[in-house]
Structure formats: structure tokens, C-alpha cells
């Protein structure tokens, strides 16, 4: 394909008068290599006493010496313990229950340690709440081995000792002279921290605690507090939900701390012909929107109107809002659906507006929704933006004598960060409790360096009445001390923090050891009751006035920006984590970036373009986004499903302090996060230039192909399998025969009836696309990080990818109908296939979205195995397709022949290579490597092994005990990571097993069944409740 497009590498190239550029175009080097100078000097050449023969002798000798030296094997040393800890057996993993609580993610987890070194995070399935780890929590183990962590306490920017720090800070604390000591902290929700703070208050009378959430939930907190008297958030259990309506709330993602996806996924799997109905109104395309049965792209202002209309229809009260016909019809249907569901219906609202949140509570109460739990609310967000604002005022006024900043980085994450930094500089004693020299720590006199959560003690009341314990799984790697310990010391206590913690657990009537082993205990303390007596009446607003303010909300001119957090980076506290940077966004499939998401219509108006260059990579224009003096230049990515007139930007990017250069990606969007409100009205302009994205999938559609099978609930209930899940057929002697029939099989089948035969099933209904499995696979299988430029070249190494498909029309079914309507004869006619397929490539304005995790399908008739010239790929009796890395010579025939494109080639050596300066390039980062899995070298093909190291270990444990293996014992990294129950793994030869039952389901199909590869991975047809 010829192109006249001009590509340039730098802007200097565009300047035709630039001599240097011209010069470089003609010569490879700017100045000639001075070979003449060297060779032309006869005198110098003759003066040398090295003759040509001597030179050859030297070369010969050194070659011979080098090869001789290579013959000698290296001496390998082994250093055993002097005193081996009793519970450690070298080569065996130990698991400990602990809790991550970093202000953004709160979850109870199991930590796998090998020889005392944490290497993987797993979900704690024993925990009733928040016992499942998302992608960030899975990746947090790598942050433990972060080279950019501070290694000692810091005094005035220089490395120091704890003694020095304690002395200096204590001396200054004694000179407060009645000035205030402020503790600016993340949400701790920790009984022990509360007790420590009260001790601090005893010692220094004038102490104030200001809670600051980086990603604020103030609107919901205020509304909840006004209604129930507690600064907390309602909990939702979607397991039994019949109708779920969400207005702007990405509850499948990280809305209000996330963790709702487990119950949601459960309600989405058709059970006895019933599944939940999910309606989503939103501006950005979110995970929730992608999973919804009906999705309506609407602007944030329209969302307010919709909520007002819904309130009128369900609770009552008059409001006149102007909605488009389509939307008002949908609101009517939504109201009917909610009312019909009654207590099994629920409304969620992500509008960052107190009135909206109050009406949501009222609607749910009117439905008497059993999905909402206000008796035991979630305690993990308690931030108060107004308190932070008044703190800044107080700091400026000089009322604050000392400030302790713990677990937050306001100089980076506060919207008016300059104002904050300026106010901070007026405080005499500034102590930061940080693990790295982040933007705030750099502005403080002292950094009391804190350890990673895997090195810490702690307790967190995630849900009222449920306290989760954090215990160290490794001795602190660096000279660090946790906040609680330091504060105890400074308040003059000699007790260790562990003892404080122990006392609290025991006084709550729980057994210390049992609680530690479980990772949680139930606090027998005051159980929260729905009691309005402790509500401050001053905070209460009437529903009627809330309704009228919502209904009268006016759209201002400009674009409505909705700020969101990405699955990978979240609030940005783990930005220095290469696993998260490289985790593709579930929707845009973009890595290593944030950007402006914009609708196709707006892009055309602004002149913004996205195009794929020759190697398939995506380029996009830059736009300038400005909001009252803040102006940022970001790349724009055209997002199908983005509401017209809105844009979205992800928070958490653009950090530079204490972040490795490779990880300094994207643009900081926190300056747009005024007052902690995620919806702002901004102006957007085209800024020219081209940005290079690194996407792992093109922004295309499924083009009516039979990759993801979909049906609607009605067809699924009433229809036969042939209707919604037909078996592909081929013609044998002019008779249509199913492709699985042995008559049309070219291959001889092996007997796999003895021993184990592993199968995996992926339920497309339960998969929300959260990406936890991708990171878990990274950690378990030592998958390397390749970096942005390599991802752009489609050289990403993820063994497991989650494909995202859009539909070209409003739904996938319409796509198929459109494809069937093509005129087979006329290629170029109006209804011709050429133009038709071209159209099918373009996603709709509001497409349907589907996710499909794809890993090696472990075909029984694997096309990759037959083409390997060195038999590096072979089949095992247990159904796994084996890959012997040491046999592989890198012909890549197998990848060529794989219909699923799941094989990954090591283009380079990714460990110990300066070109790939990620975790595998330093000794600390390499501590995370799983010792049971080979670290692959360059020139080798690799792929999913169905975690053969895990299945083999399960088998060995059974052999050691001399017993049969129970169903559920076999697992892979991804099936363990999937708390949604989308991935089922097991032994198909065990007729009692779950996987055996799942394989018999009507919804079961194999990917590209018609190819005849007989995969051992199967999928379950996605059913939509339309």
C-alpha cells in the first residue's frame, strides 16, 4: 500500500533549513569517522611494533583462552541457615493471612512466601468480606521490592538514624508552645491507630487529625452521615440482586473502594433461568457500562436529571426535567424494572453531589432494598475535603506548629498542590511518614520511613464490626519503622505496637493466634445501629430541595470532564510498579499511559484523529484541556461509547518524585480534581502533534465473527442449544456433520481416560474484565515486563490477555444480521461485502462490549506442536500443551500456526538487561521471582502452561499423603485470582468435579471450534438480560 504520508521522528526534521537534518539524511553520522587520519599516518603505523602476525597471534590466543575458560563450570555455593526457623522447609511455600490497607485498596489476602520471601498474593477465601484481591493488590507484592523505596529515615533530605530523628523531632515537639499538632492521614479505620492517637493527644494536648482521601467520596460520605450519623459508606451485596441501576457509578470497577464485583458476577450467571438486569447511565465507558445489559451514554448533567426523574417516579415529588425521548423512555422502563424488583432492586449513584447521594439513599429506602447494607457500613473512606481546606488556611495563618503526614501525598494529589506546598512550608515541624521520597516527603524536614504493608503489623475495620489484621510476612528489608510504632514512641510509650495490637484483639474477646491465622476477627464492640439520634440536624437537607436542585442543574458551556481511576494504577500510589503500568486498561487496552477519552463525534468537531500506523500501533492527536487556569496537554483517544460532549481523564499518572524514569508516564490530572469533585466543566482544544499509544489490541470490532457467543436471556431459557450455541458443521459426503464428530477428524485420538485430564472453563457472564488474573499470571509465571515501545510493537508478553470486543451496531446480534445481509455477489455494490465489512470494522457510538480472557487453549490437536522442527512443543497426557524452553530454537512457526495467537516470543533477554530496566534488572526486584518457574531467555517462545507447576505440586502433595485428590484442589494462578468465579479449573476425568458438570452445560463452547483443534479451555456463552 503506497502512502504519501510523511513520518517524522523529531520536529527538527520538519524544518527544511536545518543543516544538521539535511546532513544526517545523507550521512549516517553527522561527522565523518576519522579513519584517514589514523590509517594515513604511515609514520605512526610503522612505529608500532605490533605486526600483522602478532595481531593474529593475540587474537588466536585470546580466542583459545576464552574457549578454554568457558569449559570450566562455575563453582556454585550453597549457604544454609545456621539456625533454620522451624516453620521453613527450603523449597516449600508458606502462606500467611494479612491485610492490605493503603488508603485506596483494602483487602484481606494470603501471602505466599518462599524461604521467608513473599512472592505472591492470593485471595483470602475464608474472609466473608473484601477477601479478594484485585489487580493492584496482586501487584502490590512487587512494590515491596521497589528499588526507589527509602532505605533509612531521612533528616533534611539526608540519610540518618532513628535515634537522631527521634531526638530532633521530640525536641521540636516540646517547643510547640500550644500550637497545634496536625496528623494528616489517609483513612486508617484502625482501632489500634485510634488508641495511639489518643495517647498522642494525652501527651500533646493540641492534636487534630485530618483525614484525606486521595480519591474523595465526600458527597456520599456527607449524605450517609446526614442520614445515619456515621461517616461511612453503604455496603452492597449484589448476590441476590434482580435489578441493578447505576447512574455514573463504576461499581464493577473501583467505585467507593471497589470489591463489589464478586457479588455482582454471582448475580450475572443465569441460575434457574434468572439473572440480574443491569442498566447503566454513564459518560465514560467504564467496566460497569461494558458489563451492563443496557447502557446509555449521558453527560453528567443529564445524569442528575435522570436521577431526579427516577426519584419522582419511584418516591414521588414533582420535577420537570427535559430529557431526550430515548432517555425519558428508558427512565420510565428503569423505574418499572426497579419497582418490580422491589427489595431486590438497587440504585447506585456515582454523581459527586450530596443532593444526588441523598436522593439515592431515599430511592433505595423506598424500594426497601435488601441489597444495600447500612447496618454494617464500609469504613474505608472517611476523608473530609473541607477539613483539608481549613487545614491549609490554618497552616497559612501560622496556627499549626507541627504536621505529621501519613499515607498520603497531597503535594502530588491535592488539586491546588502549589497552595498546599506553600502552606506546608509555613509549618515549623514537618514529618512525613512515607516509604519513598514522594513529592510531599521531599517538602518535609523529616521522613520517618515506613515499611511496606507486607513488613508491617496493623488492623483495619474495613466493615463495621469486622476488623482485619495485618501481620509482617518478612523482616523489614530496610531500616524502616511503621507509623504506629513511631507515634507510640513519640507519645512516650514503651510498649511495642505489636503488643498494643495484641491487647486490642484480646480485649475484643478474640483469640490472638486464631485471629492472626484467619486474618480477621469480629469486634464485639458497639454494633452500629440505624439510629438517627446521633445525626447532627444542621447537616440535614430536605429531599424536596435536593430534588429541585438536581432537576435544575444546568450544563455549562464546554466539555464535561469525568475523572476516573484506572484498573491498573488506581489513585497512583503504586505508580512505580511495572506490572501495573503494563497491565492493559480493560476498555481501551492501552498500557503505560493516561489520555483524554473522547467521543467520535467530538473528535471530528475538534479535528482530533486516531490512526493505526503501518505496524498496527495507534497514534493519536494531542488536545489541550483547561480549567480555570490549569492547562494540560494530553493525547486523545477516541472512545466508542463516550457520551457526546464529555471527556474522561484517568487520575494517578504523571508522578515524577521517587519514580523511576521508565515509570514516569502520563499526565497528572489531579489539578483538575477541584474540591475533590470528579466532574468538572473544561474546555478542550486540538493541540496538534501526534502521540504514540501502546495498545495491546486494536480499537476494532468483532466484525460479526463467532468468537464471543452471545445470546439474550429469553432465547437462553426457551431456546435449544442449537439456537444460541450451535455446533459448527462441515459437509461430509454432502451431509452436514458436527466438527467434533470423529468422522471428520484427521487426527488419531489418544486415550486420555486414565490419570488426570485438565480442563478450564471461562464463564463470559461472570468475567467483568477486572484484570486480576493477568497480574496473578505475571507473578506466578515470571512473565517479564517489556516496556512501552515494545508493547507498541505488539511484543507484550502477557500469557493471559483479556480481549475486549465492540459491536459495530448497537449490539452484536445486529452485527450478525448485517453480515448475513451482505450481497455475496456484489463486492462493490451498495450492499456489497467489501464496503460492508469496512463498516463492520467501526465500532458504534454506543457499542456493546464483551470481554474474553484468552490464554493458550491447550488443544488436544494442537497446530503448534506439529510444526515445531525441534519438538519443543509437545502434548502431555494430562491435556497440557508443554513448552520446553531449552529445546526451542525460536523459529516461531508455532506462533504462526496458532489460531488463537497466544504464544509469546522473547525478542530480547528481559532480565539483567539495562535496556529493560524493570524489576528483573535489579537484585531487589528479582526477589519476587517464583523459584519453581524458569526465567526465559531471548529467542525462546513461551506461553501459558496451565500452571503446570501448581498442578504438579497438588499431585505431589496427594502422593506424599497417599490419598486421592479432591475436586477443587487443582488450581491455576488465574483461577485462584478470579474471585468472580469466572474461571473454573479441574480434572475432567473426575466425574464428580465441578469442571465436568460445567462442560456438560448448554452454554459451553470452544473457541473457533470449526478449526478442529479440540481445546482443553472452554467458554460459556454470554447471556444478556435484555
Amino acid at each position, binding site marked *: 500500500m503506497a502512502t504519501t504520508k510523511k513520518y517524522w521522528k523529531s520536529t527538527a526534521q520538519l524544518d527544511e533549513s536545518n543543516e544538521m537534518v539535511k546532513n544526517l539524511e545523507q550521512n549516517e553520522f553527522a561527522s565523518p569517522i576519522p579513519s584517514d587520519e589514523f590509517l594515513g599516518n604511515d609514520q605512526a603505523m610503522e612505529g608500532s611494533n605490533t605486526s600483522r602476525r602478532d595481531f593474529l597471534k593475540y587474537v588466536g590466543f585470546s580466542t583459545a583462552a576464552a574457549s578454554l575458560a568457558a569449559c570450566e563450570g562455575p563453582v556454585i555455593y550453597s549457604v544454609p*541457615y545456621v539456625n533454620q526457623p522451624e516453620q521453613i522447609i*527450603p523449597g516449600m511455600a508458606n502462606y500467611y493471612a494479612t491485610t492490605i490497607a493503603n488508603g485506596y485498596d483494602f483487602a484481606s489476602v494470603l501471602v505466599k512466601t518462599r524461604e521467608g520471601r513473599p512472592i505472591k498474593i492470593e485471595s483470602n477465601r475464608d474472609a466473608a468480606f473484601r477477601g479478594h484481591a484485585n489487580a493492584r493488590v496482586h501487584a502490590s507484592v512487587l512494590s515491596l521490592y521497589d528499588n526507589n523505596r527509602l532505605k533509612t529515615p531521612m533528616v533534611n533530605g539526608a540519610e540518618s538514624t532513628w535515634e537522631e530523628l527521634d531526638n530532633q523531632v521530640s525536641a521540636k515537639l516540646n517547643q510547640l508552645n500550644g500550637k497545634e499538632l496536625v496528623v494528616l492521614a489517609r483513612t486508617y479505620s484502625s482501632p489500634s491507630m485510634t488508641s495511639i492517637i489518643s495517647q498522642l493527644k494525652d501527651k500533646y494536648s493540641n492534636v487534630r487529625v485530618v483525614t484525606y482521601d486521595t480519591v474523595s467520596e465526600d458527597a456520599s460520605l456527607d449524605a450517609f452521615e446526614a442520614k445515619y450519623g456515621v461517616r461511612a459508606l453503604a455496603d452492597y451485596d449484589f448476590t441476590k440482586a434482580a435489578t441493578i441501576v447505576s447512574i455514573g457509578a463504576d461499581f464493577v470497577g473501583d467505585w467507593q473502594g471497589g470489591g463489589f464485583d464478586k457479588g455482582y458476577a454471582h448475580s450475572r450467571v443465569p441460575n434457574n433461568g434468572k439473572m440480574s438486569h443491569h442498566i447503566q447511565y454513564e459518560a465514560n465507558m467504564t467496566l460497569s457500562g461494558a458489563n451492563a445489559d443496557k447502557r446509555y451514554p449521558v453527560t453528567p448533567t443529564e445524569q442528575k436529571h435522570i436521577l431526579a426523574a427516577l426519584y419522582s417516579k419511584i418516591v414521588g415529588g414533582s420535577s420537570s426535567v427535559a430529557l431526550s425521548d430515548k432517555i425519558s423512555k428508558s427512565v420510565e422502563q428503569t423505574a418499572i424494572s426497579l419497582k418490580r424488583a422491589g427489595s431486590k432492586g438497587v440504585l447506585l449513584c456515582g454523581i459527586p453531589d450530596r443532593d444526588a447521594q441523598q436522593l439515592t439513599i431515599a430511592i433505595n429506602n423506598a424500594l426497601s432494598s435488601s441489597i444495600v447494607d447500612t447496618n454494617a457500613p464500609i469504613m474505608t473512606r472517611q476523608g473530609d475535603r473541607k477539613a483539608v481546606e481549613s487545614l491549609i488556611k490554618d497552616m497559612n495563618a501560622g496556627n499549626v506548629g507541627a504536621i505529621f503526614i501519613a499515607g498520603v501525598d497531597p503535594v502530588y494529589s491535592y488539586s491546588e498542590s502549589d497552595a498546599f506546598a506553600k502552606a506546608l512550608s509555613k509549618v515549623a515541624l514537618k514529618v512525613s511518614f512515607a516509604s519513598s521520597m514522594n513529592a510531599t516527603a521531599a517538602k518535609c524536614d523529616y521522613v520517618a520511613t515506613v515499611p511496606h504493608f507486607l513488613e508491617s503489623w496493623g488492623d483495619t475495620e474495613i466493615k463495621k464490626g469486622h476488623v482485619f489484621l495485618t501481620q509482617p510476612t518478612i523482616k523489614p528489608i530496610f531500616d524502616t519503622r511503621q507509623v504506629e510504632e513511631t507515634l507510640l514512641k513519640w507519645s512516650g510509650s514503651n510498649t511495642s505496637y505489636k503488643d498494643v495490637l495484641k491487647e486490642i484483639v484480646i480485649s475484643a474477646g478474640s483469640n490472638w493466634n486464631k485471629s492472626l491465622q484467619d486474618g480477621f476477627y469480629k469486634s464485639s464492640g458497639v454494633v452500629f445501629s440505624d439510629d438517627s439520634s446521633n445525626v447532627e440536624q444542621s447537616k440535614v437537607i430536605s429531599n424536596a430541595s435536593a430534588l429541585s436542585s438536581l432537576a435544575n442543574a444546568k450544563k455549562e458551556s464546554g466539555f464535561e470532564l469525568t475523572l476516573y481511576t484506572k484498573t491498573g494504577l488506581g489513585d497512583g500510589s503504586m505508580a512505580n510498579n511495572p506490572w501495573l503500568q503494563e497491565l492493559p486498561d480493560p476498555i481501551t487496552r492501552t498500557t503505560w499511559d493516561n489520555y483524554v477519552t473522547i467521543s467520535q463525534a467530538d473528535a471530528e468537531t475538534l479535528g482530533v484523529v486516531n490512526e493505526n500506523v503501518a505496524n498496527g500501533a495507534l497514534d493519536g492527536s494531542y488536545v489541550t484541556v483547561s480549567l480555570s487556569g490549569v492547562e494540560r496537554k494530553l493525547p486523545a483517544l477516541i472512545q466508542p461509547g463516550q457520551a457526546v460532549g464529555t471527556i474522561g481523564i484517568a487520575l494517578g499518572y504523571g508522578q515524577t518524585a521517587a519514580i523511576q524514569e521508565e515509570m514516569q508516564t502520563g499526565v497528572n490530572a489531579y489539578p483538575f480534581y477541584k474540591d475533590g469533585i470528579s466532574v468538572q466543566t473544561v474546555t478542550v482544544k486540538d493541540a496538534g502533534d501526534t502521540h504514540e499509544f501502546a495498545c495491546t489490541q486494536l480499537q476494532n470490532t468483532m466484525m460479526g465473527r463467532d468468537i464471543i457467543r452471545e445470546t439474550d436471556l429469553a432465547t437462553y431459557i426457551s431456546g435449544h442449544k442449537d439456537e444460541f450455541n450451535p455446533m459448527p458443521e462441515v459437509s461430509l459426503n454432502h451431509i452436514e456433520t458436527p466438527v467434533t464428530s470423529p468422522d471428520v477428524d484427521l487426527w488419531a485420538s489418544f486415550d486420555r481416560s486414565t*490419570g488426570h485430564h485438565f480442563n478450564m472453563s471461562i464463564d463470559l457472564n461472570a468475567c467483568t474484565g477486572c484484570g486480576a488474573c493477568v497480574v496473578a499470571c505475571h507473578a506466578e509465571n515470571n512473565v517479564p515486563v517489556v516496556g512501552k515501545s515494545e508493547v507498541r510493537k505488539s511484543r507484550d508478553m502477557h500469557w493471559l490477555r483479556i480481549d475486549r470486543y465492540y459491536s459495530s451496531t448497537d449490539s452484536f446480534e445486529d452485527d450478525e444480521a448485517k453480515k448475513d445481509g451482505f450481497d455475496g455477489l456484489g463486492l462493490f455494490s451498495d450492499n456489497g461485502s467489501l464496503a460492508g465489512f469496512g463498516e463492520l470494522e467501526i465500532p458504534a457510538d454506543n457499542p456493546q462490549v464483551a470481554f474474553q480472557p484468552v490464554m493458550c487453549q491447550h488443544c488436544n490437536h494442537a497446530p503448534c506442536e506439529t510444526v515445531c522442527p525441534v519438538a519443543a512443543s*509437545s502434548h502431555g497426557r494430562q491435556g497440557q500443551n508443554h*513448552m*520446553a524452553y531449552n*529445546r526451542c530454537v525460536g523459529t516461531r512457526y508455532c506462533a504462526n500456526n496458532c489460531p488463537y495467537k497466544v504464544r509469546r516470543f522473547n525478542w530480547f533477554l528481559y532480565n539483567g538487561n539495562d535496556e529493560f530496566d524493570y524489576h528483573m534488572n535489579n537484585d531487589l526486584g528479582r526477589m519476587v521471582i517464583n523459584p519453581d518457574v*524458569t526465567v526465559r531467555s531471548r529467542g525462546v517462545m513461551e506461553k501459558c502452561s496451565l500452571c503446570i507447576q501448581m498442578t504438579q505440586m497438588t499431585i*505431589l502433595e496427594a*502422593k506424599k499423603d497417599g490419598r486421592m485428590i479432591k475436586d477443587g484442589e487443582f488450581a491455576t494462578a488465574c483461577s485462584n485470582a478470579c474471585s468472580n468465579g469466572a474461571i473454573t479449573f479441574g480434572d475432567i476425568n473426575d466425574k464428580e468435579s465441578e469442571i465436568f458438570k460445567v462442560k456438560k452445560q448448554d452454554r459451553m463452547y470452544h473457541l473457533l471450534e470449526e478449526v478442529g483443534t479440540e481445546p482443553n479451555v472452554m467458554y460459556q456463552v454470554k447471556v444478556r438480560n435484555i
Partner: protein
Amino acid sequence: MINRKLHFSAWQFLLAFVFVLLNSLSVQGQEAATIDGEPAVPVEASSSGDAALGEALFKANCASCHKLYKKAVGPALFQVSQKYEREWLYKWIKNSAKLIASGDAQAVAIYNEYGQQNMNSFEQLSNLDIDNILAYTDTEKPVPTAAIAGSENVAVSGTVDMSMTNNIILGALAIVLLLLVVLLIVVNKTLKRFAEANGIQTEFDEEEGEQRTPIWKAFVQNQFLVLVSAIFLLLASAYFAYGALMSVGVDQGYAPVQPIHYSHRIHAGASQIDCNYCHSSARESKHSGIPSLNVCMNCHKSIGEVAESTYQEGMDEYGIDYNKEIQKLYAATGWDSDEQKFVGEEKPVRWVRIHNLPDLAYFNHAQHVTAGNIACQTCHGPVEEMEIMYQYSPLTMGWCINCHRETNVDLQGNGYYEKIHKELSEARGGRQLTIADLGGLECGKCHY
């Protein structure tokens, strides 16, 4: 005739020489044995007990905590009968706790001196038994008899003797060879003389010699022969080159010098300690585990010195001072044998790893030891005879695979295998199963 006689006499001479040599060697050996093996004669003390019976009782009851001439967990017991009254000793040995509780000043003093550790009670010992033990504890420390003859000389001459006899044999062989050569020349000359005397022409005419082609020229002219030998040479060199290349990276016989000389021969052989006692993780884990030093100290807390005979053996046979090696262990663990306490700094030992599988191969000890019931010696060889541990097996993939092909699996009594064994042996016509039948040849079982 003369020559024949001469030949005969030379042969006889050689035989006689070798005979004498061997005789002298064996005599030397016998002498050495009697010197080494001479039992140390205990010097009878003034007590009435039987020291020989006492020794047996001492070793059975007391030796784990007491030594004769050196402090261990408890005090050194040499001449303890002279330090304390006998009646008091009876009471103490039978039940020291009671004695301490009664407030006996002497008892309390000892109790406090040894860190308030209670000595076990030995109510089962009669007074006579105790007399016997005390008789044994009064035994003087035997001065090594060899020392009388100059212990240094014996130790050194032992090794010198060995190399000397070797040299003598080699020298004798060289002389015999030389004699044979001389003999041949003499025979040749004599025969020639006989021939000349009988008028037989021995030298060829010079003309005839010119016509004869030298053998190398004949070889070169015979193209077939050249071709065959070239092929042979090429094949032979290819064979050797292949052998040489295939042995690259195969470290069979690798026996590196370790930071502490540890004798498997003594521990696993003479003392019959089970392999799994020290390499305990072999039952559980993929690693057999190099034992941590606290495992060594389980025994070596009370074994600070080896037995005299073992010591001599070490010096004589291997030139190793075992006691010094034990001191190295103490240095590493920070054990103070006088104070009987861990005081010093811990210094982990950097052992040289002998068995090195490449990272690309996964091997699990537990699979073979616990599930497979394979004896350690199957792969590691006669460890109980190894003074210096070495790699016994080649540890190549071919070696693994061969064993997986040939070894019948021991599936009896393991619940895991019951079903699969039944199904598989039905499929295989009832014959014994090998690992290969269970999928033990699949790439992915060891490479992932």
C-alpha cells in the same frame, strides 16, 4: 643353551625379587596393625569396681552429658571419686534433684555452677554399678602408645611408606623392563652369530634393498587402504570428539574441597545416621536441603572430639584432623565448648554445591524419596563410603530418562495410585508399570 640359562635365571631373579618385596610389605603392614590396635591398658585406680563393666555402663548412661577429661554438658568425671565422698556420690547419681532439694551445700553449688540444669536420676543403678562406673572414671587418660615410638614419625612414615613402596615397585618394574631389553639384544646377537656360524646369510644385498618399496610408500600407493584408514580415522575422531563434547557440563565425579571437611563415611557409614535425619526436607520438598548448622549441633554439642582411633584414621588415611574440623563448626555456630553456650557470632558456611541441575530442569526430591520410595544411594551412590562427597551420577537427561523407562514403580500402599494403577495396568495387559507409563517421559513434567 647359555642364553636360555641366562633367561631362566633372570626370570627367577625377578620372581624372587617381587616375592621378597611383597613379603617385606606385608610384614610392615602387620607391624603397623599391632601398634595401632594395641588396646590402651587402663591404670587400675584404688577403688574396688570393675572398670570394664563401668565403661559399658558409662557409655550407656553418662556419655551423652559427661566426658572423662573434659567438661561437656556436665563436669569432667576423671577422678570424681577422689573429689567427693562415695556415699554422697551414690545419692547424687541416684537422684540429684532430691539432694539439691534437701539443701545439701555441695549439691547446690554444683547445681548453680552448671546453669541450674538438673541431672537425670539413675535410680536403676546399684551401688555396685556406681562403683564400677567410678572405677572407669578413675582411668588415667591413655597416652597414645604410638607416641612412645614418636607419634609424629608414625603418622608421617605411614604416608611415606605408601609412596615408598609404590616407588620401589615402579623401580623394580623399570629394572625388569631394562633387563628384558638387554636380554633381547643379547639373544638377537647370539642368534645372528649362530646363523653366521652356520653360513646363513642374514643381511640382504643392497641391490635387492633398492627394489623393495618402503612400507609407507606402499601404503600411500594403495588408495583403497588410504581411503579405509581415512574413514576409520575420521570415524574414530568423530567418536572421541562426540564423547568429549557430550561430557561438557557433566560433572560426574566432581568432589570439591569443602570449607569444613565433612565425612559422610563416618556419619552415614560408621555411625549409621539416616540420610533423612540431616537432609530432612528431602521427604517434603524439592530440595534435599544442605542441613542447617543447628542440626549438626544436635549431636556435636556433646561430640567435640572424635574417638582416638577415628582421629588416627583421619590423619593416616586422609591427612585430616577431624577435631579441627569440629572446631570450625563451633566457630561457625558461635559455640563455646568450655562454657557450653552459644556466645559467638554466627557465621554461615559457604558450602560448595556438588549436584547442580540447570535451572531449566525441575527436580523434586520428595517425589522420588517419599512418593517413589527410591533409596538415596540409587542416584547418589555409596555415600556411606565417601570420605569426600562426590557426584556419583552423571545427572544428564539421558540418565534420568533411562531410569524412568526401566524402573518399575512401587505403587503399593499409596492411596493416590490405587485407581490409576488399576486402570493403567489393565490397559497395559497387567504388566508392571514404569514411570514412562505414568507420563514420566513428557517434556513438561520436568521443564517448565
